[in-house]
C-alpha cells in the first residue's frame, strides 16, 4: 500500500478480481483429474451447509446443533423427487422450500427460548430426525436409504460427469454464497449483529430480536436444504446416518474452525470437514479419531478465531497503518463527553464473563 490507487485503478481491481475468479473456477474443472473435482465438489456441499450454520450462529449468535437435519431433509426431498422423475428444477425448489418451512416452524417455537434452551431444541432435530426418517420408510427408504443418481453431463457438452457436477455445485453454491454475502454485509447483517451482541439493545432500538432470529434460522434452514440438494448431486445417496447428531457436531466444529461469522470461513470450514478425514486416513486409518481431535485442538489453539483469521492480520495491519497516517482525532472534552470511555470499554467487555 505504498500509494493510494486512483479511482480508475480501483474500479479495474473491483471487477477484475471477481472476473479472474470466475475464469479460474470455469477452467479448473477441465484441467483437474476426476478425483480432485470430486473433492472440490464435496467441499462445496459442506461449505454451503457451514454457511447456513454460520448465518444463524456466527452472524446472529443463536447456537444451533441441528443444521445437519436440514441438509438431510433437503437430501431426502431431492432423492424422493429424483427417484419419482420429477422435473429437477421443481425438485430443487422443493429441496429449498421444505427445509425452510420446517425451519420456520421450528424457529417460531424455539426462538422464544434463549441461549442453551434454543441449543437443546436444535439438538432434538437430528436426534429425533434419525428415527423419524426410519419410521417414514415409504418416503425415505428406511434405514437402507435412497439412492438417486442425477446431474450426469448432458450429451453434447463434451464434459465428463464429474466436471458437469462440479460446475453445478460451483454455480449453485456460488450463487448461495454471493446472496448470503450481500445479505450479511447489508442492513440485515447489521441487525443480525446487533441481535447477536445484545438482544435488549436490539429491542431498545425497535428491532424485534425474535423476528430476526426466526429469519436467520429460516434462511439457515433454506441454505441447509440447498446443501442437501448438492449432497445428493455429489454423493448420490442418503440415509438416516446422513443426519446423525455426530455429524451435526462436526459441522459446528467445522464452522468454528473455518471462522465464525465469516464467508471465507464457511468455505474453509467446508474444506476442513471434507479434507481432514481424508488426510487422517492417509496418515493412519486406524487412528483417525485421535488425529482429527488433535488437529482440531491444534488449529484452534494456534488460531482461536478460526482459519479465516489467517487472512485477517494482513488486513488489520494495512488498515491500522492507514489509520496511523491519518489525522488522529484530538481527545477533547467537548468531543467525547457523554459517550462511554472509548479506549477502555472494549477491554471491560472482554474481561467480563460471556
Amino acid at each position, binding site marked *: 500500500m505504498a500509494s493510494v490507487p486512483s479511482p480508475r485503478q480501483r474500479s479495474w481491481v473491483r471487477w477484475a478480481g471477481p472476473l479472474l475468479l470466475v475464469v479460474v473456477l470455469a477452467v479448473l474443472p477441465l484441467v483437474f483429474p476426476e478425483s480432485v473435482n470430486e473433492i472440490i465438489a464435496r467441499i462445496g456441499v459442506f461449505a454451503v451447509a457451514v454457511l447456513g450454520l454460520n448465518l444463524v450462529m456466527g452472524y446472529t449468535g443463536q447456537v444451533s446443533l441441528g443444521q445437519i437435519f436440514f441438509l438431510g431433509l433437503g437430501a431426502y426431498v431431492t432423492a424422493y423427487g429424483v427417484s419419482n422423475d420429477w422435473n429437477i428444477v421443481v425438485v430443487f425448489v422443493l429441496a429449498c422450500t421444505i427445509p425452510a418451512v420446517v425451519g420456520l416452524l421450528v424457529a417460531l417455537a424455539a426462538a422464544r427460548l434463549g441461549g442453551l434452551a434454543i441449543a437443546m431444541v436444535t439438538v432434538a432435530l437430528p436426534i429425533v430426525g434419525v428415527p423419524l426418517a426410519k419410521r417414514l420408510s415409504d418416503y425415505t427408504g428406511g434405514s437402507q436409504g435412497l439412492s438417486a443418481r442425477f446431474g450426469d453431463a448432458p450429451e453434447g457438452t463434451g464434459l465428463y460427469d464429474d466436471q458437469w457436477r462440479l460446475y453445478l455445485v460451483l454455480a449453485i453454491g456460488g450463487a448461495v454464497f454471493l446472496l448470503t454475502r450481500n445479505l450479511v454485509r447489508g442492513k440485515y447483517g447489521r441487525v443480525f449483529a446487533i441481535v447477536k451482541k445484545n438482544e435488549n439493545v436490539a429491542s431498545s432500538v425497535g428491532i424485534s430480536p425474535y423476528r430476526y432470529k426466526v429469519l436467520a434460522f429460516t434462511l439457515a434452514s433454506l441454505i441447509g436444504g440447498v446443501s442437501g440438494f448438492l449432497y445428493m448431486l455429489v454423493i448420490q445417496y442418503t440415509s438416516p446416518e446422513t443426519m446423525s447428531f455426530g455429524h451435526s457436531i462436526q459441522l459446528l466444529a467445522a464452522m468454528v474452525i473455518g471462522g465464525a461469522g465469516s464467508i471465507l470461513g464457511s468455505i474453509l470450514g467446508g474444506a476442513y470437514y471434507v479434507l481432514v478425514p481424508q488426510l487422517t486416513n492417509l496418515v493412519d486409518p486406524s487412528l483417525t479419531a485421535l488425529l482429527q481431535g488433535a488437529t482440531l485442538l491444534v488449529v484452534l489453539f494456534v488460531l482461536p478465531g478460526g482459519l479465516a483469521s489467517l487472512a485477517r492480520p494482513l488486513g488489520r495491519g494495512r488498515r*491500522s497503518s492507514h489509520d496511523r497516517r491519518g489525522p488522529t482525532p484530538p*481527545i*477533547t*472534552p467537548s468531543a*467525547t*463527553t457523554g*459517550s*462511554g*470511555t*472509548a*479506549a*477502555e470499554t472494549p*477491554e*471491560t467487555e472482554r*474481561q*467480563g464473563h460471556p
Partner: protein
Amino acid sequence: MTLLELEDVTAFYGPVQVLEGVSLSVPENGAVGILGANGAGKTTTLRAISATVRAGGRIVFDGKDIRGTRPDRVAALGIAHVPEGRGTFGDLSVRENLRVGAYLRKDRKGIASDIDYCLDLFPNLQDRITSNASALSGGEQQMLAVARAIMSKPRLLLLDEASLGLAPSTAKAVYDAIRRLRVESGIAMVVVEQNANLAFTLVDSATVLETGRNVLTGTSAELRGMDEIRRAYLGG
C-alpha cells in the same frame, strides 16, 4: 506515611499506549481523586494498581513494588478494587456476594459482624439479602459492589465511577455511605469519578489526567476553586 505511590506508570492496550507516565501518592487514611475526560487513563490507572493491566514504572504499596503481582495477590495485600460496571456476581445472592468478598478471611465472627456493618451502611441491601445480585437496581448493585469490596477488610479501596448511570439522589446516597465508611474505618481510597463535585465531597486531594499524563495535582480546595480547570476537565 505514604501507603501507595505511583511513579511514572505506563500501560498499553495492545499497541496503543494508554498511560504515558502517571504519578500518584496516597497517604495512609487518605483519599485521592483521579479526574479527567473519557479516555484520559483514569480506569487504566486503577487497573495498573490492581494488576489487571501490565504496567511500567513503579507502583509501591506499603513499601513494596507490586508490579507483576497477580490480581488476587494484590487483593490479598489489602487493595480492593470496585470496578467500573460494578462487577457483582449476578447469579449469587447478596449474602453470597458478601461472603465471596470475605474469601481471604478466616475470622467467622468478624465476617458476620462486617456483613451486619455493610447492611447498616447500605440499608437497601438488608431487604434484598437473599435476592440474586442481577435482580438488584443499579444503585443497589453499586452499593453491593462497595460492600463486597470492604468485606475483604482492605487498607486501600479503588473506586471506579461509582456514580455512573445512577440517578443524582442515588449517587449522593452511595457517596454519603462511602464517606461515612471513610470516617469510621479510615480506609484509604483512590476515587475515579466523572462527576467532580461528587468526588470533592469525598477526597482530600486529586490529580487531573489528560491522555495518560498528570496535568494538574492539588488539594480539593485548590482544584475546586480553579474555574478554568473545572470547565475544561471537570465537566463544569
